[in-house]
């Protein structure tokens, strides 16, 4: 690392801070799209008039509710009447299942958006259970569902962050939790690069750079664990779901890096310390990447998106509004933590020079 890069490091901080500030303000002020968050009744009976109240999140005045639909096994039942007040949609149903058996139904709320010819729908999976009664013999499901062809999902029309049932407002954490891991991977990759450089040229400064980037990378990992743990508590009801392959991979990987710190601290001779630590660093980086990026993808089940057969963020939740803040957040945090790593290296270099001068 030359003096020019060190002089430039303050710009890493400034540009990083501008990007993070942009994601901080924009990421918190952008509202969530309108969505259904729940139903007052979890169970209704067929062949009976039943009323249920659906809760909307962030309803907008441009949305005029037209009807609530229940969907089960490809069939649709429309509400007989519907009224909309604020974030409450009250719907009365008279569902005849006919030949269909009891079971969970999904709820769709359909409404016009902006003008009366533009229709959108919102969706709640497994909204309520329909219990079939004995006098229910003939289905009254809709025979014509052509109107659905001209109805768009609200996500495609409305601006804002995606409104997901489990994630809700916590989806904003994507801008802080995930960039920590990206930043960690970047810093650990730089650390490994300088370890290889040290092994090739034997310059102790390369070892100090490698160590500094690794220290800040590990710190990123700890921050990623803390931010993820809080998010997991909110969405998965557990601080650390033990059977998630990604979390187990991270735990093993972090301990490997803690072992690096212990290994370094246990050696006295600077050159021996640098050589052994560099070899160990080069060895564990690919293993760590395999543990957090490859192994979870091969696992059968995982709570994390894009792993173990679950749907990736990219396909499902990461829409363009979120992307506008997500990518700058990654670059911003990488910039800030790179500045801290370089500062850490400069302190180490200064300390070593001071020791040298004292010895002379």
């Amino acid at each position, binding site marked *: 690392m030359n003096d020019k890069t060190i002089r430039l*490091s*303050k710009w890493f*901080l*400034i540009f990083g*801070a501008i990007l*993070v*500030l942009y994601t*901080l*303000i924009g990421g*918190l*002020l952008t509202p969530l799209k309108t969505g259904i*968050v729940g139903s007052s009744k979890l169970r209704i009976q067929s062949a009976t008039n039943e009323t249920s109240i659906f809760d909307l*999140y962030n309803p907008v005045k441009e949305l005029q509710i037209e009807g609530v639909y229940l969907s089960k096994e490809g069939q649709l039942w429309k509400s007989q009447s519907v009224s909309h007040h604020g974030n409450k949609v009250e719907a009365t149903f008279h569902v005849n299942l006919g030949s269909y058996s009891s079971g969970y139904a999904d709820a769709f709320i359909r409404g016009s958006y902006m003008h009366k010819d533009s229709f959108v729908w919102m969706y709640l999976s497994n909204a309520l259970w329909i219990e079939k009664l004995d006098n229910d013999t003939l289905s009254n499901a809709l025979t014509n569902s052509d109107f659905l062809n001209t109805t768009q999902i609200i996500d495609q029309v409305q601006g804002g962050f995606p409104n997901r049932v489990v*994630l*809700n*407002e*916590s989806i*904003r*954490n994507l801008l*802080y*939790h995930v960039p*920590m891991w990206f930043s960690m991977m970047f810093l650990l990759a730089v650390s490994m690069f300088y370890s290889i450089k040290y092994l090739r040229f034997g310059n102790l400064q390369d070892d100090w750079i490698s160590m500094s980037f690794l*220290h*800040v990378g590990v*710190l*990123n990992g700890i*921050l990623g664990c*803390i*931010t993820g743990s*809080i*998010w997991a*508590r*909110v*969405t998965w009801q557990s601080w650390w779901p033990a059977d998630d392959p990604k979390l187990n991979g991270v735990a093993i990987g972090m301990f490997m890096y803690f072992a690096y710190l212990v290994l370094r601290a246990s050696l006295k001779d600077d050159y021996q310390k640098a050589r052994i630590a560099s070899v160990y660093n080069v060895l564990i980086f690919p293993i760590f990447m395999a543990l957090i990026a490859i192994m979870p993808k091969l696992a059968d089940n995982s709570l994390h998106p894009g792993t173990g057969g679950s749907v990736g963020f990219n396909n499902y939740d990461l829409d363009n509004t979120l992307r506008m803040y997500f990518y700058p957040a990654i670059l911003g945090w990488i910039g*800030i*933590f790179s*500045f*801290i790593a370089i*500062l*850490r290296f*400069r*302190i180490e270099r*200064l*300390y070593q*020079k*001071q020791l040298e*001068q004292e010895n002379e």
Partner: protein
Amino acid sequence: MKKMKLTALMLSFLSPALILNAQNSEQGISEKAAEFLATNAKYHVVIGVLVVIFLGLVVYGLILNRKMSNLEANQK
């Protein structure tokens, strides 16, 4: 020197990500809390305080950077 090392680490530890996560998780738990903050304009105050803390940390980082440059120049 140890104090400076500690400060560099503190810079990263005090990053607002932690504060933001605590705030976001609260919103996830209780919609009413989010609604309360939004309706009485406290939400903007929270964002304002976070921005001020963050800017403070950035300025502190720049001051540290300048101090390091002076120390390096003196050593040369």
